[in-house]
């Protein structure tokens, strides 16, 4: 029988939900199980309600389930809020004193056991032990994970936490649980990674040397990961006074020759749009990650959304070429970020990566190895490459639109750059010929840029209906397709990672081959659907849209499609 178990750990912020979740995830990983986990939290440091939901399987899983088998309620509220999600035969573990007579509730004296073993603070570890005992996990693996997890805190702390886990484990050990399964050890199925870390590692792989940011959920994690390694690499991470400063610092650093990036969410991206235009007109490469959350304005700080696609494609006044990507998994996030640095540098244009709270804060097993390139191709010229450095023109008109790029103060060539419309030498000009020449030069890059764009990935291409989506919802949409196909519906899906320049020919080919296609997006107006219509003249037949700030569940996509087909 195949394993597909979801465990939800709910409680107030500050109750140690993360630690429990991390132990469960690492235990499963080490035992060779597949898993994925979402983090759901409010914009507060203490109290309120948060949860961590982990899905454990013997097959790859890339989306959360809408039903849960086991609920670990660290407070009473968690049971009340989530009891409806429990499957038949599912159980809720909670503090004995809070437990009611509900037949699905198992009361365990977490606090009492914690006081006896590791101290009050370890009651979440008691709970983790109990949880894993119910699932049938062997204690040895729990011991290993706890010893590794608390290694930096010293032997005494390890000992206390081990005792706590043991106390919980034996307290729950004899309780029958319908969804307990046989644990068969095998090799880990890959590395455990969240989107934030994948994006930051991708930046390193893309030779990012400078990153500036202003803290904003859900983007801050990316910068935290980069800052943590900044002493090990030629890398400086600076917290700017605001997003405007961040993007302008990044432009300055890139101008001087360091590959540079910033990461923010929609509101911060709004502040960066003038800088985006400066990067474009001065042809200074930059990478911006927009980790989307619901808006407008503050919207919902800790929730997820995909509603900035048309915004980032069109952001800033006037027109200019740019790259826009939206990775569908941590592995894609890694690859795409490294590639964004390369392409931004090659074409001297801004590159934007659309991530979101779901991708950034969820844990996944990377489905392929993350590989950094052996070396970095540079797109910089120096005096030795120039016939006459003294006559160097930063904006020399070329057929490709890309001009040889020298760095300031690196030789005799003077690098003169202006955010005003400019002549080939970089000095401001408002002459008609210059203006037309420069607009055409910048736009000329688009054709070659399009040739760098990957077509959307198609899952079951010869299907009657296709579900179309972009970015992080890929996993959920694919699983929905699997569900539909089990019901003998000829369904497939089209997943876009590269969104701009838009791969219109490939999209058109894919959608012409099916009878109908449906948009599955986390916004309220089907932004990709509108883009497809604009770029291919093909229209979608229906939509499954979710904009409540929570990630898609495969079952709700499948249900939504079936409703559309009726």
């Amino acid at each position, binding site marked *: 029988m195949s394993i597909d178990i979801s465990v939800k750990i709910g409680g107030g912020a500050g109750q140690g939900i993360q630690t429990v979740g991390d132990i469960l995830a690492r235990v499963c990983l080490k035992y060779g199980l597949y898993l994925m986990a979402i983090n759901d939290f409010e914009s507060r440091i203490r109290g309120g309600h948060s949860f961590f939901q982990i899905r454990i399987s013997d097959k790859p899983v890339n989306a959360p389930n809408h039903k849960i088998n086991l609920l670990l309620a660290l407070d009473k509220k968690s049971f009340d809020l989530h009891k409806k999600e429990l499957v038949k035969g599912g159980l809720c573990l909670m503090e004995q004193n809070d437990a009611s007579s509900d037949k699905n509730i198992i009361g365990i004296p977490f606090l009492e056991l914690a006081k006896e073993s590791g101290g009050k603070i370890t009651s979440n570890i008691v709970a983790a032990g109990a949880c894993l005992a119910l699932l049938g996990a062997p204690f040895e693996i729990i011991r290993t994970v706890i010893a590794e997890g608390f290694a930096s805190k010293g032997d005494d702390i390890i000992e206390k936490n081990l005792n706590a886990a043991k106390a919980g484990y034996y307290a729950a050990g004899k309780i029958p649980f319908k969804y307990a399964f046989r644990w068969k050890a095998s090799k880990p199925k890959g*590395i*455990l*990674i969240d989107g934030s*870390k994948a994006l930051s*590692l991708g930046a*390193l792989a893309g*030779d990012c*040397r*400078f990153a*500036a940011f202003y803290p904003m959920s859900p983007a801050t994690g990316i910068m935290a990961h980069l800052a943590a*390694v*900044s*002493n*090990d*690499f*030629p*890398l*400086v991470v*600076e917290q*700017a*006074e*605001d997003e*405007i*400063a961040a993007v*302008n*610092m*990044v*432009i*300055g*650093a*890139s*101008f*001087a*020759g*360091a590959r*540079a990036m910033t990461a923010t969410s929609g509101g911060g991206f709004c502040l960066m749009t003038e*800088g985006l235009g*400066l990067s474009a007109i*001065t042809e200074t490469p930059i990478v911006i990650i927009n980790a989307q959350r619901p808006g407008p304005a503050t919207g919902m700080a800790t929730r997820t959304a995909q509603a900035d696609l048309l915004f980032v494609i069109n952001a800033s006044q006037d027109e200019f070429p740019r790259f826009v990507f939206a990775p569908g998994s941590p592995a894609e996030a890694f690859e795409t970020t490294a590639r964004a640095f390369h392409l931004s540098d090659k074409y001297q244009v801004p590159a934007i990566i659309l991530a979101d709270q779901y991708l950034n804060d969820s844990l996944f097993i990377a489905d392929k190895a*993350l*590989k*950094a390139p*052996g*070396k*970095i191709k540079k797109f910089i010229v120096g005096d030795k490459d120039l016939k006459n450095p003294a006559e160097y023109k930063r904006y020399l008109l070329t057929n490709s639109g890309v001009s040889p790029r020298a*760095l*300031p*103060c690196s*030789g*005799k*060539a*003077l*690098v*003169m*750059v*202006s*955010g005003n419309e400019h002549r080939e030498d*970089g*000095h*401001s000009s408002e002459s008609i010929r210059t203006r037309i020449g420069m607009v055409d030069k910048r736009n000329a890059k688009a054709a070659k840029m399009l040739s760098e764009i990957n077509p959307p990935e198609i899952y079951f291409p010869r299907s009657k209906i296709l579900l179309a989506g972009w970015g992080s919802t890929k996993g959920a949409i694919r699983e929905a397709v699997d569900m539909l196909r089990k019901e003998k519906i000829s369904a497939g899906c089209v997943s876009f990672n590269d969104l701009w320049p838009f791969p219109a020919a490939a999209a058109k080919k894919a959608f012409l081959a099916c009878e109908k296609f449906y948009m599955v997006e986390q916004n309220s107006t089907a932004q990709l659907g509108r883009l497809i219509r604009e770029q291919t003249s093909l229209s979608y037949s229906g939509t499954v849209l979710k904009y409540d700030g929570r990630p898609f569940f495969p079952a709700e996509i499948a249900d939504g499609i079936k409703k559309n087909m009726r």
Partner: protein
Amino acid sequence: MLSVKDYDSGVENSWCPGCGNFGILASMKDALASMGIPPEKVLIISGIGQAAKTPHFIKSNFFHALHGRALPLATGAKIANHELAVLVNSGDGDCYGEGGNHFMHAVRRNIDITVLVHNNKVYGLTKGQPSPTSDEGMVTKIQSDGVISETFNPLSVALALGAGFVARSFSGKPEHLSRIIQEGIKHKGFSLIDILQPCVSFNHVNTFEWYKKRVYDLFEEGYLPDDFNRAMELSRVWGDKIPIGIIYKKDKPSYTDKIKTLQNGTLLSGEYLSEKIRRAIESL
């Protein structure tokens, strides 16, 4: 030997005849020639405004950027390559208005750049609106009953934020200005030079003659810029007598001095560490 002629850019100048900017431009060229910094070794960053056009008129590497954003851009460039000599040409609107937040934080960072604020106490490019440094009560087309807000005092603000080089000069005293610019470039850390400058088109109060009567050179008075409290007091002197010169100077480590990664060379000179990235991925 470099001469001021070596810095001619050959670009037609677009300032009003008699503009104070000409004096500043001449002093910059003189300072760079005197210090033996050739055009190809100079990087000038500017924002938007009449002052921000300066780099087009002086042979150099430059980035003429956005209104108010010269300081963060210069900060990024300096971090990427801290061996660059970075100058900023900005105005009172650009630096203290639109870029006010960046001004505060660039001072706090003590990034090693030399900031020349062409302070004509009025908006020139947009034709005569008051700037943060306009005197209270100044009547303009828009503020027909006079400016209501208090005058922004850049010197006091910079001092309060811990600036290590705070100076004021006057575009009508080119030798004085050239000397201050040289001192600013030599200073390791954030150097603020607020340059009083008449605007012949839109400021009919603070004219060349008005300043000429009032400014006096602190250096000639034997003033030593090493006492913070005295400097703070001096920064507030404005009226019949206006002090010019280095108000305060204190050496301390600059931003890039404090970053470990930069102590073995510039960010640009570092190797791409593919193997180390591979190990970071493996350790997950």
